[in-house]
């Protein structure tokens, strides 16, 4: 049962990644791209947790937490660049 759920979830998030990719490549504007990239990071975090469940080890949870902690920083930086031009004022 859990395997079937995992396969389904993997499929959903994989599809989500492809949609994010489409948005990043096509735009149309920079805000779309940054948002899509941020969503991509979130999808990745989900995939990491799913993979952890599949393999039955805790290491991947930690990794996903670290990705979560660090991943949003670049989104912030991109947004600041867009809004103010200078990342560190």
């Amino acid at each position, binding site marked *: 049962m859990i395997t079937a759920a995992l396969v389904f979830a*993997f499929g959903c998030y994989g599809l989500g990644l492809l949609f994010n990719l489409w948005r990043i490549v096509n735009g149309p504007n920079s805000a779309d791209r940054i948002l899509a990239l941020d969503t991509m990071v979130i999808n*990745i975090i989900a995939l990491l947790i799913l993979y952890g469940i599949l393999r039955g080890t805790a290491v991947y949870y930690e990794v996903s937490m670290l990705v979560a*902690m*660090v991943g949003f920083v670049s989104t912030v*930086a991109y947004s600041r660049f867009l809004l*103010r031009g*200078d*990342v*560190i004022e």
Partner: protein
Amino acid sequence: MGDGGVFLFVIALLPFIGALVPGVMIRAGRNACATFTAVPTALALILLMLLAPAVLRGEVIEAELVWLPQLGLSASFFLDGLGLLFAAMILGVGLLITLYARFYLSGDDPMGQFYTYLLLFQGAMLGIVLSNNILLLLIFWELTSLSSFLLIGYWKHLPEGRRGARMALAVTGGGGLAMIGGMLILGNIAGSYNLTDILASGEAIRASEWYLPALILILIGAFTKSAQFPFHFWLPHAMAAPTPVSAYLHSATMVKAGVFLLARMWPALAGTDAWFYLVATTGLVTMVIGAVIALFKDDLKALLAFSTVSHLGLLTMLLGFGTPAAAVAAVFHVINHLTFKAALFMIAGIVDHETHTRDIKRLGGLARLMPVTAVIGTVAALSMAGIPLFNGFVSKEMMLEEAAHTAWFENPWIVPALATLGALFSVAYSFRFIVHVFGGPVRDDYPRQPHDPPAGMYLAPALLAVIVVLIGVMPFLAEPVVAAAVSAVTGTEMSPYLKLWHGLTPALWLSIIAVLGGAVLLWLHRPLARAWDAAPRPEAKAIFDAIMGAAVRLSRMISETLHDGVLSRYLAIMVAASVALGAIAWSGGGLAAPTRTPLPVPPVVAVGWVLLIVATASVVITHRHRFQSLVIISIIGLMISVGFVYLSAPDLALTQISVETVTIILLLLALHFLPKQTPVESSPARRLRDGLLALAAGGGVGAVAYAFLLRDVDAISDYHLANSYEGGGGTNVVNVILVDFRGFDTYGEIIVLGIAGFVIYALTEALLNGTASRRLRQIEYEPDRSRDRHPLMMVIATRVMMPIAVVVGVYIFLRGHNQPGGGFVAGLVISIALLMQYMASGFAWAQARRKFEYHSLIGSGVVIAGLTGAGAWLAGKPFLTSAFGYVHFPPIEEFELATAMLFDLGVFLAVLGAVMLMLHSLSRLARHAGETVNLEPMDFDPRTRAEAEADGKGG
């Protein structure tokens, strides 16, 4: 090694250690400075004198320290008669020069520097004469070239001094390069680089087919150093040096190094026809040419310089004769030339010092104004002329005696005739020195009214003049020293008999001809000089400049062809070459059949693959829109991190994602000051070429990786996996590799990282102080940018994140040795936590709360790592050997302590410091671009409003 051996090391080291002192002692005054220069010299001389009796008895004192045995290089010294003679000369004259220079240098000259250079030179020179290893000798040989460069160019404000120094370095340094080749050949023939071994295998060397090349190369080295024709021209130009330097280097020591080498190599190289014709002929030609030119020089020091060239030619010729009797004459003349020529240089310096001119035409009549100087100068000059009762006479007699029975290509009279001609001109210029400087009526147009200098200045030449007369009257005084030296030169026991009166020999008649002819030449000097000036002759300096110019042009042409600064071209050539090499290797067919089968690809992994491919292709398409391509690059970074996780390398994934984040912030900071679009600069054809190259290279790398992945290859990974826990005490193999197995690499890497941080800091610093700073100030911001500078939400969020991130960082660091993590990742995580504060509340606010300089973080990181590594030495293990143990404090679980952890702490600090310094440097640019600073933590602080309301209610 006995006591004597230890003394030898001390003697060789003393000048180098002493060289550290004068530069400091000058603060205590000029006398203190000179005294502290004299002390190491005097000490070395005393030690040498303690060794002298044994050497004069015929013993050879040796000392050896193994240095690089694989190269045949050892710090070995030996002292025989020849070494003793030269070492005593170097140290003795060194003392006199120290005294003389104290009075010669004016208050404006940096005296400490001078004495430091002088001692450096003295040490190098001593090294040459004491070395028992020809590789060591070569090192000292080059050191004399370098230190003499510093000394000749001592008066940096004089262009001729700088030019002369450069010329001397080019000629003697070039000769030194040739000599390296010759010495290596010699060492190869003899099978050892030890001088004593080489000297013992003279016959094998002379019989070898490599004898001639080795001889020519070594002779080029010796001839350039000793200013032999056609390399003689640098010596007169080196006369731009202060006179103490000329007296020391260019009469007594450095120029004699070539002669010393000829004498040293005498047992190994001399005795063949090639030696005779090369060495004796060069010496003879140099002697005559030098003497002739010297007569027509009006500059006192130029006259002495060419006279030195001539006398060096004489010494070279004598050694070239290859007979023991000629060697005796050569060694004896080395002593005599030293005494009178050093005295003459000092006298020339005194005359220059007192009258402010060295032009003989403006001098004359000084005998009455400067009687002491005149007496000393006359004694020395008469010795140079070879007049009886002065020491120059005795050795010149011996030279003429040897020349008289030497045949050159079976021609019995050409050598004596030319030798006499040289002696004749030598008499002429010596007499000119006396008559035209000291003789004649007193003039009233000296640039400065001359009188005798203070005693300190003429004491040194006076002492030398006393020796000139002593040896001249009683030549047997020099016998023991000469005997010891000649025995060392010829390799056989010799006891020469030095005497004043040889009877009515042919040499005496030749001498008489020379003296009479010299007097006549001086009498005819005025018309002769006019004819000399009118006659066309090649100018050595012009030829040298032309050759140097041509060499510079040629090397510039070559380097500009190969190295034209077009980076894309270099890259294209490199990539094309590697692709071609790869294709050749591939077509060789040496690849075994695959031993593995590909694994199945899960759909999600395929999605990741699609993401990578599409993102890569998109970057190529959109790379002219810089911001957009940055966003797409993030996808690639993200996918690589996920790939690491999927392939069971979670710590690499951690590192990768942290590096990605920091890089993006760095690039955004830089992009702020860069154009947002890349202009089209290359032609379509070029882009096509580069595209094809890129495809070929990428395809090649892919094919190689694919081929390797399908085959079982022996890799070092197995060793690391097996030994990680037992050898390094950690279960996290990656971390153990970084801090233990490959700790030395990591140590180098953190140093490089730190240097990169400092360089970025220095570059932005230079940028801000440079011309770009004006353009920076003119940067205008877009008018429609957001007014949210420091949004409340972001400030609060990052403040909350900060302690969490720091705890995570510390945790990752602490467990790094056994679980995924380590100093590198921890450094990145903490720097990201700090960066968030910078982004949220602004540069100035965050900067005001910074407790440590980032520079010192880098420094302390490297120092901690280095000390940890060096700690292994205390345990008698090699650098960076780690130790570990398990500790148990009651309240917490048993845990492991490894020295690797301290090392990791160094890595952590260096990474943190370097990352922060780089970002800090880049964001400083914005401050310069006229941005206002923000001291408040956020744009809108709810607390201030609450306070205001409270105040409102209260008031």
